[in-house]
């Protein structure tokens, strides 16, 4: 079903909105949730929560890209769930690895008193993404938005694992420099 029709179902408060969303984007949302939570059951609950959130958000929202709208909700909910349930589970999850890698971007930041507006930081991240070549941007977001494993990224984008790791390392350094330059660190 066309996205506009699905969104209209939400506006009409039709229960079919959720079933049609599930049919079209269930697997996509599930893959995001699973990438973060590494648990089929937890991922399913996150996807269910995503539908609830979407139901509550549309209306008033009328998302232009439904997939991304749902994907962002799923990512947020899944990370929150991960924080609540699995923060200390070492070794298996990509989130803990992603966080450790992102430490490279923020390590040595002593200005802990500084309260950075999230909105401001988001704008800075998007400005940074604007500057990246397409392949680097894709690899960066595959790792830190979708939480894909290095192996999966290498497979999807046909790079070697070492190439992916090297690209990510360089991109994180670039991000760190930009954050320093813009006064966030």
């Amino acid at each position: 079903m066309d996205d506009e029709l699905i969104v209209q179902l939400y506006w009409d408060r039709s229960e079919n909105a959720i079933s049609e969303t599930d049919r079209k984007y269930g697997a996509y949302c599930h893959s995001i949730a699973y990438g973060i939570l590494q648990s089929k059951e937890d991922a399913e609950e996150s996807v269910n929560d995503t539908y609830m959130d979407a139901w509550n958000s549309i209306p008033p929202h009328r998302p232009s890209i439904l997939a991304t709208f749902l994907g962002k909700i799923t990512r947020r909910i899944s990370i929150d769930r991960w924080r609540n349930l699995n923060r200390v589970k070492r070794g298996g999850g990509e989130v803990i690895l992603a966080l450790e890698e992102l430490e490279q971007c923020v390590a040595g930041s002593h200005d802990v008193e500084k309260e950075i507006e999230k909105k401001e930081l988001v704008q800075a991240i998007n400005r940074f993404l604007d500057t990246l070549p397409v392949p680097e941007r894709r690899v960066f977001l595959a790792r830190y938005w979708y939480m894909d494993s290095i192996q999966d990224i290498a497979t999807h984008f046909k790079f070697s694992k070492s190439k992916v790791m090297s690209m990510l390392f360089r991109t994180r350094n670039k991000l760190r420099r930009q954050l320093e330059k813009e006064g966030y660190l």
Partner: protein
Amino acid sequence: MKSDELLDAIGEAKDEYVQDVRNAKVKKMPGWAKWTSAIAACLVLTIVVSLFFGGMGGNAGAGGSGHEDGSTFMSYAGPVFPLTLRDENTSISADRRITMDFEPWVPVWISNEEEAASRTNLTEAEKQDVLDTYNEWYPEGGRYQSSGNIIVSDTYTLSNSSEEDQTVSILYPFASSLNNLSVNRPTISVNGHKIETMLHAGSYAGTFQGAWENWAETHENPGSLNLQYIESWTGYQNLLSDGSYLQRALGEYPDLSDIPVIVYTFTDPWGPEEDDDAGIPNPSMRIMFEMDYEKTRVMSYGFHSGLNDRENGIMGRGFSIREEGERWYGNPYFLIIIGDDVQNMTYQGYVTGGWDTKNEVEAGVTITRTESNLESALREAAGFYYGEMTDVENYVETDPEYGFEMYYGLLKEHLVAYGVLSENGAARYDSGWIEELDVVGVDRVFWLEAEITIPAGESVTVAATFKKEPSFDFHCANTENKGISGYDMVTALGSNLQFTQQIACLEDRGQIEIVRQNFGFDLENGIKEVTLDMNEPHYYLEVKGNKSDK
């Protein structure tokens, strides 16, 4: 700043960038689109009471009025059905006793120590780390968990009044989809011993509806683009009352071997590597041919784009050219032609899969034409798709208990009933893609069959035990049924047993407040067991949690 904050901020990356990564990944894995359509339907909204229903204290509604036959919930789990026999047997009578146990509603205390101990894959130091963290989160030493399911024990005492032993095939029905079989399948026991059963699957239990065009003006939704599931027990009444649905479930699947087909198999496609900078974001193959739309029907596997030019007698089908290392690389693509053969088939590579794309690339594919029958051709194509669905990375069971033969049989059944083989096919399946046929995710009625012997003049106890999900309204819909869970049963629908009595028991576990019912339970006065009226075809129970912390 912490890396957590950075991770959250990255989550708000521009939509087009996020979508771009998805597109890039999809292009690399063209099977994704097929996977999506198949698996999406399997994700059932298993709403956990403690998350959405519990503690909401929602209005229960006036109760009674307007609910003479129970509520119509937004998500209907289906009733509990009665046992039946494959062949009616007048020597056998049945006493039924059904217990609805709210034990899963009882919050279970999970101590932080138990939580840490459950992480069996961790080292002792890591387990200690888990324990420390949970102690921080739950300083009271643990947390409560509960569920909205109930446990149903549906027990029958079958008595043989004749002077001969009676060997009969019992059939126990339940509603589920293939995907949820592992959750919904009852356990059957005879005289307290669990027995093996044979699974029979009914066809799709719902109907179709339109795409809600002009709904606001007409309040009608004609068409057949969307699935329409059964919304109340009367839907199952219509489905089961004349026995034909069961007979189909017990019968053979359609045999399509007398339908001649021509199969075009496409193997070893090749083309340029994906290269955004060179303007080749998704190298794709496009197959074009001429056909008479009145005399030819086309089914396919592996293709995921298409062009239908009925006016000029032209059809096109396309796929992204998989590269080595991609998922399902090496799988063939099939066009299955029913009726007159297509003519003047050509192929051409393009820079993307979009049909408005004009930019060609050098590409090729090996095309093999064979004459076969639909049974053989469809079995081969369905086998590849089944392999995709049960691929370990797809979050579907890798070795589902229903197996390929049941999947394939139900696919054929769906195709004959609603697909391109049907005179009145659903618009939903107009593409002819076998991946589009709804097989594993749709609701059906299943039966578990077993053979038992009831000695002359004696009785045997048959029990079905299973978890039953509630019917509910989505919490966010703010209906009067917000926070209410519904469970229902039918007394005789679809059963040929001669019942002498039926008794319903409620194990409320102190967890519920009854909002609506027609059983006659009275928790205040301790009435938790009632004899059912055999003239009443349907009983319902609608409850909400009575614990503020639930």
